[in-house]
């Protein structure tokens, strides 16, 4: 009995293969998008973790020889004797057979815990590490490369970046033949109070401060956050398809279910059968989805890797390793998603009266009551989104706004379209036009889920596209502003700096000092920069707001600029007095954008800086010169002036690189956009195909009254295009709102800075064309079906044998 019942229910899928394919493909695509994005994020995060473990030492301040020489062991001993808590590092490239490796030799006994990147806590490990034969700590990939190339013991650590190895300092000294010469000394954060002055103890050594570059994690987090949001959205769009397909399958099996119940099958047996069926479908589709997602991620990851490497200097391998947790989360999402989208159908089955007559088109007619409920729920959600966006605090509120906005807009769409169509119907004077609009409205219930999915996909495209483009425009523009000088030079000592100034006098247009001190302002340790009174700043500096004579006030020393982060975090305003270290204060006259910097920053006039902080290091300079002269100047600085090349940075090439990287980012988001749109197009196709099966009785009367079949086909095309177009137009404001939320709420809450929004109507046009093409594709097969219908098939609808 039970098996007979199960077979009866399952035979539905054999008779409706397209429906089954729709369901499986929809779920698989949704899972693929989700797990693909997760895979990219996980891989990137894992490799930041690895890179950070090595960089962690660099997070601490370091002592290095000013001229780049090695530090002698005597100096190190001297500092230690004086009570300096420093730890030696030897770093260099070493060859093992054919393999070249970055070797970092550390002293685990003196290395401060913040710099201990790899666990050597186990006694045996530490013993091996310190043993004369030595131990190399390497990543799994590096271990493979070194296989057979060295006799040294290898310890594999997932935290290591590829191509690098940790070893004990004595081993590194031997392998690199340094004879006691040290590369640098790591300075522990905790130091005794009564230390001797560095310039007396060890002249020639300078402190390299930690965190000289923008925090990689901060900027990349922004990128990943947005990717995750995108992945989730795509998943939601996919679930619409699943929801529609399952709902249809359940409706069509109503009479079967009723018969089975009448034959004495218990309600729980029916429910269990249906649950098992859904679970099996979810598993099959979920597995397929994870595989597709993996393929997608490995296609996209090289692009993402290039983006992150170029943009933030974060090293991500371009290849993907298969992690078991994806299988788990991917499948979990698929099953949870299917369960959620079939909950309503299951609930209906449980409450189905045993005797009610079958209503073949009930699912498509979606009673007026549920339409009203949708409208109310949609309005409520939009209201919540609005309220949250003005009153909410924190990242969770930001995501709450996103969710409410999108869901609310999707729920409102059918009501809005229906209103639009009945207005159009009322305004049409020709009977065929009126019929066209009325008939389109009649199709709405059957299409509304697909249209909602389309709305979300289009809105996501507009929203994320706007965000990425705004990000690019702002970031590149900001780079242009911040890096206005053609060349940045860092002298090795004060002596060299003054010689440099003189040397540059007749070779450069302007030499701008870039001096800064660190100090405590409003309870936060931050950088205070001094700037010269120069058009470079007046014309370029990225001011968000400021008084008219900002630069005059800075030049005279009365005013200061603060960055956006400080402004937002501390709530200071223009006109406020800002107390600065040393017991003086200036008035805030402007606020500037400072993307990617997690900390606050203050800018004052260079004279004031020198006056209040006389021992400021005067080593860095921005050089303005004609772009044509830059290569030669660079050449001379490194050649004649013998500056190490890393002390002379040519900003033009840096900018170029950044721009190239953004094109990569575009490729990634573009691909994700296309995927999401494809999912929505597929949903539309599935719905149109289902509807085409019940179309004939609706078209036959019109045909019989003198409309050719050709014209009816043309009307079908126009109808689909009209619905797509209306949805596209509705998606524009939703997408812009989405972008606004991402840029102005989520980003601010997450990272402390706000990106200005730029609008790109040309991109919309392009998206519109893509959507149009998808619309054309989605109606192709249903239309071919309609065109193949002959007069006798149409006529049959009027006869009683139907």
């Amino acid at each position, binding site marked *: 009995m039970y098996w007979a019942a199960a077979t009866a229910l399952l035979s539905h899928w054999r008779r409706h293969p397209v429906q089954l394919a729709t369901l499986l493909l929809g779920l698989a695509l949704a899972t693929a998008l989700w797990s693909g994005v997760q895979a990219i994020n996980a891989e990137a995060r894992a490799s930041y973790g690895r890179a950070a473990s090595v960089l962690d030492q660099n997070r601490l301040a370091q002592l290095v020889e000013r001229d780049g020489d090695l530090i002698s062991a005597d100096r190190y001993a001297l500092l230690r004797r004086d009570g300096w808590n420093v730890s030696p590092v030897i770093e260099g490239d070493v060859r093992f057979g054919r393999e070249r490796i970055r070797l970092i030799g550390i002293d685990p006994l003196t290395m401060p815990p913040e710099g201990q990147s790899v666990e050597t806590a186990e006694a045996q490990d530490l013993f091996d590490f310190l043993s004369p034969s030595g131990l190399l700590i390497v990543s799994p990939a590096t271990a493979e490369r070194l296989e057979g190339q060295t006799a040294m013991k290898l310890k594999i650590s997932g935290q290591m970046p590829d191509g690098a190895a940790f070893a004990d300092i004595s081993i590194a000294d031997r392998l690199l033949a340094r004879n006691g010469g040290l590369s640098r000394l790591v300075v522990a954060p905790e130091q005794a109070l009564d230390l001797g002055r560095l310039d007396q103890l060890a002249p020639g050594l300078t402190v390299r401060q930690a965190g000289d570059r923008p925090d990689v994690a901060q900027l990349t987090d922004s990128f990943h956050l947005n990717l995750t949001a995108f992945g989730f959205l795509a998943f939601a769009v996919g679930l619409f398809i699943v929801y529609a397909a399952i709902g249809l399958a359940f409706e069509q099996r109503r009479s079967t279910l009723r018969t089975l119940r009448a034959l004495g099958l218990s309600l729980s047996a029916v429910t269990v059968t249906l649950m098992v069926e859904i679970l099996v479908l979810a598993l099959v589709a979920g597995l397929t989805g994870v595989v597709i997602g993996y393929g997608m991620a490995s296609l996209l990851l090289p692009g993402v890797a290039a983006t992150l490497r170029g943009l933030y200097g974060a090293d991500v391998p371009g290849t993907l390793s298969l992690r078991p947790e994806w299988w788990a989360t991917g499948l979990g999402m698929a099953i949870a998603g299917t369960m959620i989208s079939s909950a309503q159908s299951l609930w209906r089955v449980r409450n189905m009266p045993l005797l009610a007559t079958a209503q073949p088109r009930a699912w498509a007619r979606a009673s007026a009551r549920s339409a009203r409920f949708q409208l109310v729920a949609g309005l409520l959600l939009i209201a919540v989104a609005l309220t949250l966006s003005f009153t909410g605090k924190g990242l969770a509120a930001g995501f709450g706004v996103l969710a409410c906005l999108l869901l609310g807009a999707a729920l409102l769409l059918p009501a809005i379209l229906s209103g639009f169509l009945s207005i159009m119907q009322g305004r049409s004077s020709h009977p065929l036009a009126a019929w066209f609009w009325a008939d389109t409205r009649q199709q709405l219930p059957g299409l509304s889920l697909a249209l909602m999915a389309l709305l979300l996909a289009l809105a996501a495209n507009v929203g994320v596209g706007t965000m990425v483009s705004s990000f690019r425009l702002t970031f590149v523009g900001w780079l242009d502003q911040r890096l206005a000088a053609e060349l940045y030079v860092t002298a090795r000592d004060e002596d060299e700096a003054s010689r440099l100034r003189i040397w540059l006098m007749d070779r450069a247009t302007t030499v701008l000092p870039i001096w800064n001190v660190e100090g405590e302002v409003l309870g936060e340790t931050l950088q205070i920069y001094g700037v010269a009174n120069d058009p470079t700043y007046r014309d370029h500096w990225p001011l968000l707001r400021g008084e008219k004579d900002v630069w005059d006030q800075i030049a005279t020393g009365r005013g200061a600029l603060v960055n956006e982060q400080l402004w937002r975090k501390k709530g200071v305003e223009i006109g406020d007095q800002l107390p600065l270290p040393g017991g003086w204060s200036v008035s805030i006259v402007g606020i500037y954008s400072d993307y990617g910097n997690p900390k606050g920053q203050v800018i004052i006039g260079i004279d004031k800086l020198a006056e209040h902080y006389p021992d400021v290091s005067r080593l860095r300079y921005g050089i303005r010169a004609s772009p044509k002269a830059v290569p030669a100047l660079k050449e001379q600085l490194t050649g004649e002036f013998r500056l190490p090349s890393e002390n002379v940075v040519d900003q033009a090439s840096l900018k170029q690189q950044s721009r190239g990287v953004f094109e990569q980012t575009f490729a990634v988001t573009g691909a994700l956009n296309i995927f999401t749109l494809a999912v929505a197009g597929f949903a539309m196709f599935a719905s149109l195909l289902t509807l085409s099966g019940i179309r004939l*009785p609706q078209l036959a009367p019109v045909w019989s009254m*003198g409309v050719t079949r050709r014209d009816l086909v043309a009307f079908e095309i126009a109808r689909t295009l009209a619905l797509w177009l209306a949805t596209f137009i509705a998606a524009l404001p939703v997408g812009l709102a989405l972008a606004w939320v991402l840029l102005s709420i989520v980003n601010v809450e997450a990272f402390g800075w706000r990106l200005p929004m730029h609008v790109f109507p040309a991109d919309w046009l392009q998206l519109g064309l893509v959507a149009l093409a998808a619309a054309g594709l989605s109606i192709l097969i249903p239309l071919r079906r309609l065109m193949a219908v002959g007069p006798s098939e149409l006529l049959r609808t009027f006869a009683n044998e139907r």
Partner: protein
Amino acid sequence: MLLSLRNVSKTYATPEGKIEVLKGIDFDLPAAQSVALTGESGSGKSTLLHLVAGLDQPDSGQILVAGRDIAGLGDRGRAAYRRSDVGLIFQQFNLIPSLDVAANISFHARLAGRQDTTWETQLIETLGLTSLMRRYPEQLSGGQQQRVAIARTLAARPALVLADEPTGNLDETTGDTVLGLMLSLTKSSGAALLMVTHSPRLALMLDGSVLLRSGRIA
């Protein structure tokens, strides 16, 4: 003569082979006359009606409507003919489900460019549809639907009304009322009527009747 059929034949190709349904029909219908088309099931009554309505094409022969042969018309020509010259009433699914009763009734007349609101109002009142104007077809009973279909057809003032068992789906009392209304209104509109029916009783209510047997008019 409003309608003249000359030697009209129609064959259907089916998996079991060709069926010759109509084998040379000759038939005349004067203007403003009503004729019942009878015959047993499968004799080809509906087929003949569809050919006259321009919904399908005969294999050979002429179908002259007011002297014009519609058998030779293309898709577009036949559509125009249906639009302006004939009115059709079928057994069911005559109405456009997405339009309300009011819009359904005026649809054909407006399509033909012949809307006459006085005449329309008269039809609506006579057929007792006044209170149903805002309803949709699915909210009507079978008899109500057929009354709307009659109003819709006659509102367009076609010269020729073709009906295929218009009351076949209704019970006898309702069917008789609806048919009575149809006959009197067709008469007063001055249209000719060709109506397919199984029932000799109903056939008697018309001006004349013809019998279709073995593909010919008997």
